[in-house]
């Protein structure tokens, strides 16, 4: 049992491959989380524009990318774009897919955060001469982010987990590398190692999230 699922020799032998995957997963996360947050911020700011010419397309955009399965989106970009003459490679496709998909989620979270800030805050800021944008960045957004911090963190956890989708388009992240090692060694141990690494990587964030959520329940 141990020999086939947690074989020490295989752990050692496959470690360089798995390690490279871990590194890429970290790098990928460091790319797609800010990218998604950036996309979300744009969507959330646009949501404060009440004009129908902005409102309806925005709503359609957010709904579409929240409803569209990210795996399908990724494969569509990867397999479909070459037919449109665009050969982007797995990495760029992952970046685009995450920007679209997780951006829509982050956008909804940030929008809820902005809505949770009382209107009097903007009025006070504007009454002292701050522009709409200054009031947003200095007064509203800091409070908005604080109010939805647990949701932002929870979504970020999901995003990091979703980076495993990169394996489908040959991005050498942790899962992809572990499967490579598995097929080289004819042993599932590297997959088990990858699973443990995922857990160890995300568990502290899950703990932190629980604490944030409990604090939210307990009130300020």
């Amino acid at each position, binding site marked *: 049992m141990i020999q086939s699922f947690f074989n020490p020799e295989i752990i050692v032998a496959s470690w360089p491959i798995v390690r490279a995957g871990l590194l890429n997963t970290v790098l990928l996360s460091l790319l797609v989380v800010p990218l998604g947050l950036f996309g979300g911020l744009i969507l959330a700011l646009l949501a404060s524009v009440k004009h129908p010419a902005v409102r309806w397309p925005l709503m359609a955009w957010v709904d579409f990318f929240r409803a569209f399965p990210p795996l399908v989106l990724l494969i569509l970009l990867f397999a479909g774009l070459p037919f449109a003459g665009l050969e982007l490679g797995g990495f760029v496709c992952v970046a685009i897919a995450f920007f679209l998909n997780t951006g829509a989620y982050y956008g909804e979270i940030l929008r809820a955060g902005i809505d949770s800030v009382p209107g009097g*805050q903007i009025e006070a800021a*504007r009454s*002292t*001469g*701050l522009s709409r944008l200054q009031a947003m960045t200095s007064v509203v957004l800091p409070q908005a982010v604080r109010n939805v911090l647990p949701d932002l963190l929870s979504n970020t956890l999901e995003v990091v987990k979703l980076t495993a989708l990169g394996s489908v388009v040959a991005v050498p992240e942790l899962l992809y590398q572990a499967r490579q090692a598995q097929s080289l060694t004819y042993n599932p141990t590297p997959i088990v190692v990858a699973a443990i690494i995922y857990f160890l990587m995300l568990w502290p964030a899950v703990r932190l999230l629980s604490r944030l959520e409990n604090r939210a329940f307990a009130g300020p």
Partner: protein
Amino acid sequence: MNGPIVDARGLHKHFGALHVLRGVDLKVAERELVFVIGPSGSGKSTLLRCLNRLEEPSAGRVVVDGIDMLDPRTDINHARQRIGMVFQSFNLYPHMTALGNVTLALRKVAGKSRAEADALGRAALERVGLGDRAGHTPGQLSGGQQQRVAIARAIALEPRVMLFDEPTSALDPELVGSVLEVMRSLRESGMTMIVVSHEMGFARNAADRVVFMDEGAIVEEGPPAAIFAKPTHERTRAFISQIQRH
């Protein structure tokens, strides 16, 4: 400058079908304290908010310190620095210290360096008696202290006129005095003020003129003694006797 600091003429405001201001004219001279009273829903807040264009008037003219507030060419953000506003619910920024609240616009709008802004901010907090609370966040301050920080936030920009919208209505009775105290000292320093409030004692002592509004119009105005002792309109009389019964 001998003209009025605030010159509003023929102000109308509609909210959909609701006609909230029905042709209000209000002139306020330099150093004058105008006290606005009237029943709930009569349009007092809306009037104040039209003066700094937090609310867009449907018709009329607003000139403050020589600046046409409704002219599209007016830099509204610049113009608003000349008009301080104090809200019933304070509206302090909860994520900043008292000093941070007071210096934000000094840095972002007035273009002061952090050091300059801090010095001006501390001076403003000093003026409202809170020099020792600069590092406290709003959550660590009493309601009265919060409102005084809000006043400091406005006066730090050296406005030409201050608008107060029920500044003491959200306060416990024992905290009202400290805020009125600050308003009185502001008045003594020569600040032009428009105050919406139910503090009739303050009106009697400090106001130059009392304006009674009802149903979106100014019904009657005059020196406090005259308005309170012998109002000419029945509606004013009814309102004042009702207030005084409380």
